């Protein structure tokens, strides 16, 4: 989980309480409030200058265009390297947002779905400000809405409308959106998946491999309600599954230990899978301010940018 203590740059005064934020009816306004608040808080941050551009070298092979030979490297190393210029186009980001019924659960004044939609809108707004193209794919047990990644006026508005759609479906299929997105997008980009991931993840790894192998950067946000995290329910009752509507009698006092054990195992399996695949994984409680998620994302991007630059520097060093 994204911990506030780990983000010393974000002062608690600059954060917006999610409960207060959710009272704003318009999703776009909510996103704007978060992003702008985030910027204002960020100016006091020691971190600055980051980009999402990307560059790489590769050895020349016959057939390559000689115009892209890096003569400086050739001069230093007497080897031909093709310099792939930084991508001039903006980042293509696809938001995969879970709109299944399980997201329609919340012990607070808002549900996980509200929180996830706000989070997705925040990212969309933030990236849109940077001039990146944003796409959207909503899903439950199947893929519902799909907006291709674009950066043009009105697209953000469309995206917000799609995000405001009510939850549907009787299940969650985590594989369908990933399979769809890997089939749809060819250019490398960023894939952000926002879901509670309360579904079997057996096949998820295989599908994520296909996405990461395509050069996409994948970020996973697991949005969970505090009640799901702690299972702090008081009285026994017939528990009804929000999706399958199956009912079983649960005494929380008796079932809590087993639940937490299984739940943690599930989350850890998900995190381990992400680590294995180089997928960024964030677990967010719906009670946390959204800025944490945004900051964690940017921080992770910055780290990644430094890693890339270090790699590039090493190559440059060689040349």
């Amino acid at each position, binding site marked *: 989980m994204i911990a506030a203590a780990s983000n010393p740059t974000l002062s608690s005064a600059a954060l917006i309480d999610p409960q207060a934020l959710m009272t704003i009816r318009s999703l776009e306004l909510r996103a704007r409030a978060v992003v702008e608040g985030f910027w204002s808080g960020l100016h006091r941050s020691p971190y600055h200058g980051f980009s999402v551009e990307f560059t790489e070298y590769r050895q020349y092979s016959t057939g390559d265009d000689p115009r892209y030979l890096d003569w400086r490297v050739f001069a230093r190393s007497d080897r031909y390297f093709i310099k792939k210029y930084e991508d001039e186009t903006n980042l293509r980001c696809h938001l995969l947002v879970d709109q299944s019924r399980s997201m329609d659960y919340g012990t607070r004044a808002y549900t996980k779905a509200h929180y996830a939609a706000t989070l997705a809108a925040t990212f969309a707004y933030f990236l849109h400000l940077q001039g990146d193209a944003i796409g959207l794919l909503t899903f439950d047990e199947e893929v519902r809405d799909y907006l291709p990644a674009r950066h043009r006026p009105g697209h953000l508005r469309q995206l917000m409308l799609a995000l405001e759609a009510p939850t549907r479906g009787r299940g969650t299929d985590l594989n369908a959106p990933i399979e769809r997105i890997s089939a749809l997008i060819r250019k490398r980009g960023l894939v952000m998946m926002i879901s509670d991931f309360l579904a079997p993840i057996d096949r998820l790894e295989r599908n994520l491999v296909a996405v990461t192998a395509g050069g996409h950067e994948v970020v996973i946000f697991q949005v969970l309600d505090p009640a799901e995290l702690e299972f702090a329910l008081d009285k026994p009752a017939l*528990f009804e599954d929000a999706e399958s509507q199956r009912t079983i*009698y649960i005494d929380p006092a008796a079932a809590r230990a087993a*639940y937490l054990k*299984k739940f943690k195992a599930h989350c850890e399996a998900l995190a381990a899978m992400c680590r294995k695949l180089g997928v960024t994984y964030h677990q967010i409680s719906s009670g946390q301010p959204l800025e944490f998620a945004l900051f964690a994302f940017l921080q992770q991007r910055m780290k990644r940018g430094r890693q890339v630059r270090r790699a590039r520097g090493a190559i440059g060093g060689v040349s």
Partner: protein
Amino acid sequence: MSFLTPLFLLGGLAVVGPILYHLIRRTTRERTIFSSLMFLLPSPPRISKRHRLEHILLLILRCAALALLALGFARPFFKQVPLDDPTSTQPKRTVLLIDLSASMRRDGAWPAARERAEAVLRRAGPTDHVAIFTFERQTAPLLSFEDWNRAAPTERVPLALSRLQTISPGWGGTHLGNALIMAAEALAESETKGVDGRPVRAVDGPREIVLVSDLQAGSRLDTLQAYEWPKGVTLLVEAVKAKLPTNAGLQLVADAADAPRGADAVVRVRVTNAPDSKREEFKVGWSRGAAAAEYAGAPIPAYVPPGQSRVFSVPVPKEGATAAQIALTGDDEVFDNTIFVIPPVQQRAGVLWLGADTEDDVKQPLFFLRKVFMDTPRLAVKVVARAANSPVPPTDFAAASVIFVGEPLPPATIAEVRNQVQAGKVAVVVPRNAAAGDTLARLLGADGVRLTDAQPSTYAMLSEIDFRHPLFAPFADPRFSDFTKIHVWRYRKLDPAAVPNARVVAKFDSGDPAVVEVPLGKGRVFVLTSGWQPEDSQLAVSSKFVPLMWSFLEMSGSVAPVVTQYYVGDNVPLPAEAGSTAVKAPDGTSAALATGAAEFAATRQPGIYEFTGAKPQRFAVNLDANESRTAPLDPDELQDLGVPVAKVAAAPTETRENKALLQGLEAENRQKLWRWFIVATLAVLLVESALAGWTARRATLRTEEATI
């Protein structure tokens, strides 16, 4: 409070069910939607003290319903001292019918029967009407309804029991059909006489006949076939059994006409073995005395399989032996193992022929007359021929039963013959010619009697025969009534009008009388107007001749068959000869005969009886052969004859437990508390349903309010 079926109280343990149900019941109404149940497992239900307290009233109602149901099934009743309520049960009219036939003498049968009868009497209520009938061959009341009603209510059963002590099985046959009819008729009567002789209306309650009998297969039921059984009268059979089943009986078989006589004479007996016998080898032989095993000579072995009968020839003992009974040994029951035999006595009869015939002349009537009267085992006829013109010894007249007159007789002889006829004998006048007319006139005492010879041109035949006359009665059957083959060449005309009281029994086809009967004193005179000798007719060579001659003999009354074998209960006609004054029974007692009595009816036991007096005569009385058929009769046979047979009541065993059980059963039947328990159960269930419904509605409302 007591219970008739207390085991059902265990059903009350079912209250554990609702208690557990209330303890573990879940709050199924509260539902919580959760995002996913993939990490949750169903929690086991647990006891909730709070819940039990909330529905304690429901729990109590449910437990109460189950407990009340269990109590109802346990058939509760309040013990109470049984009151002697005479009106509590409907009075019953019962005829106790007790079998006293000879078969009840079997080992163990009579004590069992008496025990059953006593049990029936003790069961009788003070308002019941009971009569006791005994039966064997005859049915007799031992205790009538009048006797019963006349006694004080508390004295009735002791009276009946004391009467019961006076009876024991006799020797008669089992005429069950007659007994049942008599008992049913007694029950069907609507009125009986009460204490003071006034008629008392018979009770309206159930009417039943209780038959205490061994119900042997030899019971006679044939009379029931023609009897319409009265409605409402049921038969309860209290069948008793003998201890030992093996029984074989003896029965005398009638002699064959050609049975050997003299030294080779035999008596044939039939040995019948009961179907349920266990043995099949017996011995039969002449016995000397009371002990059956005292055989006179070697007994013959008799092998008779169960259910079958065989006839054996037992040689008659040699001359001088006094044995008069045949005994059988080898079976279990002795009551039917002896038969008493009086060998038939050959009677003697005399026929006197008064005529001039020579014995060897085949053309004379005497020749044929001698051939007619051959000796039989029962009758020896002596034909004496005397010349008509010579004096006849008085002994001849005395010995003769029938006097044939073939010739004109001297007046003295005629007078003697007339005397004999008037004393009861039969004279047959066969005039050979018209000269015999005077003799006939003198004999009949009618001077106008004249005979004239008649000779038809061809022949004459007998016609207009009065077959109702004893003389021709044997020929009454159409198979034997054809007399047309007898041709008559000659006959004598007789004017019957000239003879007072003459009756023409047969006529010739010419209209002249052929046979004329004239009563004379106690006897009678027959006139045959044609002789049987070939000179007159073909009668002697006809098949009609011998029977006709024997008819004359029988009409004399001297050859009436003497029956010497009777069954127990038979009425024995007194011997024709006067002088019998008393009868000596087998047990040595002597019973005087009433003056003018024609029959002796007190043949109550088997054995040899003897008419004492001027001419002693012995006769044997034996057991009814059907009494030996001791296999049990199927009561369904009675049912088939229209007698409604009720189920055999089990012999009541008057143990204390049984009595208590019966009292409990009676009290429970009267109180019927179980009905109230069932009603209470239903009421509790109604309340429970209403309360549960109300609770459920309230819970629903509360949930809805909480949701809003």
